[in-house]
């Protein structure tokens, strides 16, 4: 197997008295989809937020391509090629589609001076937004429309499109298909597969076992903040996964 794109080693994180993550380690590999499973409150989102630079772990290390990095802010994560679709935490409702896609990565014009004062190149951002979304097969009626006016499916498609457009190497997806209709959820799964085929390392959080088995190569199961099991999906059944998650079966 290839070297891991991202390695998490012995991460712990607590919020006051609650131990959200306790000594968790996992690897994700280029060209593979790793599912992160667990019941509500198992620590999945906390782990993703630690990797994405939203939270700081209390102990443990995160390395990208074998080098340990301190991911102090979301900016650091992005600069390392880690893109994240957080659950309910991705788009700005009052900004339009292109502005969301380019949030904190705005294209500027006017040369060095324009870049320094942040003079927006709106036309270029609209054009690039259009071609990026088209490439991903995402159809949005108007890129100038505030995303708050779009449907849940369209919003999620944009959030994922943003991660995909920028995340050339590592993409973390926290419940990307929650609240989506069947067809749109399928779209999202297709996107994940094409990411995998392009050699991106994907970490996928979802509650839907059918989706897990359909797109993932391996799975890490968290239970009450600890790693309960790590399995290759071709070696376990769906029932096994559920048993790991509920604790009926130990890894």
């Amino acid at each position, binding site marked *: 197997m290839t070297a891991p794109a991202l390695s998490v080693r012995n991460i712990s994180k607590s919020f006051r008295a609650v131990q959200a993550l306790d000594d968790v380690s996992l690897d994700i590999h280029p060209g593979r989809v790793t599912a992160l499973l667990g019941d509500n409150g198992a620590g999945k989102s906390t782990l993703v937020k630690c990797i994405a630079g*939203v939270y700081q772990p209390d102990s443990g290390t995160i390395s990208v391509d074998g080098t340990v990095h301190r991911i102090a802010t979301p900016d650091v994560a992005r600069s390392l090629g880690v893109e994240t679709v957080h659950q309910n935490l991705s788009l700005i409702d009052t900004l339009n589609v292109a502005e969301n896609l380019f949030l904190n990565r705005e294209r500027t014009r006017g040369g060095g001076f324009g870049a320094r004062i942040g003079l927006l190149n709106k036309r270029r951002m609209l054009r690039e937004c259009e071609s990026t979304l088209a490439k991903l097969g995402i159809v949005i009626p108007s890129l100038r429309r505030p995303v708050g006016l779009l449907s849940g499916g369209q919003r999620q498609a944009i959030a994922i499109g943003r991660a995909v457009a920028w995340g050339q190497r590592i993409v973390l997806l926290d419940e990307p298909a929650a609240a989506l209709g069947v067809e749109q959820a399928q779209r999202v799964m297709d996107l994940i597969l094409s990411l995998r085929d392009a050699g991106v390392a994907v970490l996928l959080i979802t509650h839907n076992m059918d989706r897990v088995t359909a797109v993932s190569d391996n799975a890490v199961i968290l239970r009450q903040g600890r790693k309960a099991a790590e399995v290759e999906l071709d070696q376990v059944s769906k029932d096994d996964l559920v048993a790991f998650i509920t604790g009926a079966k130990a890894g």
Partner: protein
Amino acid sequence: MRLHVLAKATSRLRQAWIDRSEDGGYRRYVVYMAFVSILAVFALILWDDGFLSWSNLLNIGRQAAPIAVMAVGMAFALASAEIDLSIGSTVALSSLVAAVMVADYGFFVGALAAVLVGASVGLVNGLVAVKIRIPSFLVTLGTLGIISGIARNMNNLQSMPIRNDTFSALFGAGSLGPISSLVIWTAVAFAVGHFALHHLRWGRHVLATGANRASAKAAGLNTDRIRISALMVSSTAAAFAGVLLAGRLAIGRHDLGENDLLTVIAAVVIGGTSLFGGRASIAGAVTGALIMAMLNNGLILMGLEVADQLIARGFIIIVAVALSMRAPSESVGDDVP
């Protein structure tokens, strides 16, 4: 060929219309409709009182100028989901600082010092709000009192005269051709504000921070710095409004701007800026300020008693705000598939 271009242009216009009308619908334009209708009503009933005379219109423009400048600044504070209650006392402090400094160092240093004092008020407001995590509503309520007290102590409640013709001409009393310098400064404030909100990265980041701070943070924005900068813009604009009042009246005084806070907030909100962050209109804020000045002027010309003016203005403001504000739930696509 020409037809093709025409068809393209129409379809683009149509799309823009759809985007806009779905984004708040007519509410977006309420402030302009209100402006036109109030202007029309006053023009009709006050025809004989010379409401539409050049000198009266100029009067309205002059009255609106400091409010408009403050409103442009306040729009940024509100856009970032903060609020700045200290602008009124900042106006007073700025006018006094200008008066003191102009006497010794001339008009330029005087104006600059006043504006810098305003910027530092905003810096303190912002740092306390962000670092100690006190809502800016409470922080600026505190600094409102503190600055007001300092202003009162500066010259023992006396007016401080400004005897500098350049200062007065530049910041209020003078004019360029038929246009008062106050009107020109208002236009400058509008242009700078509009440009910063729509064409600078910073403007988009202010809106993003105000709309959803957690998401903005997750996108890597330094929301602390953005919130501080928005409060600094508000207080700097207020200080500049203080300079304009000092220029027009040729004094610095502890109570200048004291009663302007609510007028400014009303102007900004009527103009389509959300009180809860994430949505702002600079053109709306300036138009809102014009409406406020027009109401003031028209109700006085109508011969209403001060008490009745207050009542009438209050009613009109409530109606205008009700028409221009949108319920938050309306904006989100509820029809999630």
